[in-house]
């Protein structure tokens, strides 16, 4: 970006907002907004603590397990829906419903079923992540060139071989963007789940900090999570770009 003849660095707008935050924070307008410098100092302070490490471990575990389940069930379901009209008729209304439903409202029900623990968190992650993965895998499979499927069949591919060697690969660009969107939703899922359960992981820390009005701590934790979600998105976007070349040459 340039203003006049001056080339501004990429992070300029971010720096302006950071300065503004710092000024508002230092003016003491609201205790909810502590100075930015204080928040960063707090990040450096709390990240190495054992309670943060434990929260990160528990959260990371629920996040990874939940996403693995969502991917392992979501992709085959999406592929099945993309291939079979019957399966599509049966599942599509539900997938669309869950995709747009306010899933946070379901977490208390999950909690009743699985108890206020890690299982509930994992289930919440799956619930948040899976639907977009299903829908994108379905869209990917529907865009496969029919002759590629016929090719596999003509060389005697079993249904499993067709799934693992043709469908998944041919639909990979869509599947990857489904996984990326699923992971971002899963970040929401894991945080919302933990905040509602509020006795484990980051949810417990959020509860602790906000109930004691430790705003710097609260923001520090939020910033770490934001950075985490951003990093996931960037990593998956990079991966998607690597596979884009054959999305255009599929037909």
């Amino acid at each position: 970006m340039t203003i006049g003849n001056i080339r501004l660095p990429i992070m300029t707008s971010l720096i302006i907002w950071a300065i503004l935050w710092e000024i508002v924070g230092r003016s003491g307008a609201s205790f909810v907004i502590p100075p930015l410098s204080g928040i960063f100092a707090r990040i450096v302070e709390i990240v190495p603590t054992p309670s943060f490490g434990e929260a990160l471990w528990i959260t990371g575990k629920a996040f990874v397990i939940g996403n693995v389940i969502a991917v392992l069930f979501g992709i085959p379901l999406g592929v099945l829906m993309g291939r079979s009209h019957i399966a599509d008729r049966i599942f599509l209304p539900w997938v669309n419903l869950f995709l747009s439903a306010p899933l946070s409202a379901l977490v208390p029900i999950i909690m009743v079923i699985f108890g206020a623990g890690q299982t509930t968190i994992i289930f919440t992650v799956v619930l948040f992540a899976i639907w977009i993965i299903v829908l994108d895998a379905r869209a990917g499979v529907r865009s496969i060139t029919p002759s590629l499927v016929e090719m596999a069949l003509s060389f005697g591919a079993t249904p499993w071989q067709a799934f693992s060697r043709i469908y998944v690969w041919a639909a990979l660009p869509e599947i990857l963007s489904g996984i990326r969107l699923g992971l971002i939703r899963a970040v929401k899922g894991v945080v919302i789940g933990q905040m509602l359960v509020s006795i484990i992981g980051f949810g417990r820390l959020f509860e602790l900090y906000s109930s004691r009005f430790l705003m710097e701590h609260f923001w520090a934790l939020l910033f770490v999570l934001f950075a985490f979600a951003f990093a996931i998105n960037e990593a998956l976007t990079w991966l998607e770009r690597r596979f884009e070349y054959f999305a255009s040459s599929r037909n």
Partner: protein
Amino acid sequence: MSPAAARKIEARHRPMVEVRHLSKIYAGGVEALNAISVDFPEGQLTSLLGPSGCGKTTLLKIIAGLIPATSGEVMVDGRPVTGPGPERAFVFQDFALMPWANVLRNVAFGLELKGVAQSEREAVAEKHIASVGLGGFEHAFPHELSGGMRQRVGLARALAVNAKVLLMDEPFSAVDEQTRRKFQEDLLELIAREHKTFLFVTHSIEEAVYVSDRIVILSKRPSQVSAIVEPEIGRGRDPDQIRRDSAYLDTVETIWQSLKRYLD
């Protein structure tokens, strides 16, 4: 059609593919094939030629076992077709290559599905890649190749499984004219070299006459066999000479006259 230029000939060779009273009615009521019966002799190249949309590709795909027939049956090497089988290999109009796999893996894919060990199937694939003139491109990806080269990959893949019958669905229609001519000559060489039965769908009369031992002309949909022509063209001569040969030109003209009435 004048009997002098186009004779209906009984197959001198054993029929490798037999089609008996085959009908195909698509869902929605489109009748593609109507009780069609035709033989495809072993070791020869037989073309299916007909007006566009006449069901040539449908017939080929039923023989391949990719789509089911409504009634009638297909026998390949004496056995009825119920689905795809290892004695048949298909060459696709749009090549149907896996864009995420290199030439070597694409060519070896049929063997990969059969569970042939990697080193073995790659050795076989390399041999066929060289035989279609793509030596040195083993590790190239389809999007790096021209249309003609991609179809050579498709052909090598079909050859690699060592099927007795090669089913080719307008294999050269997506490549440019010069490449197509070179391809046709290579195909003739291939027929002479490999003792295989070729079924070849094309919409080009010239192509059919140039490469075929036998041309099955289909009528408009719902298709029946309208005529069978055996071009009497001496092989093994200079290609340019053949294309100027009067027997070649007469056969092209006769077929054109018989197909013209299907145009509307």
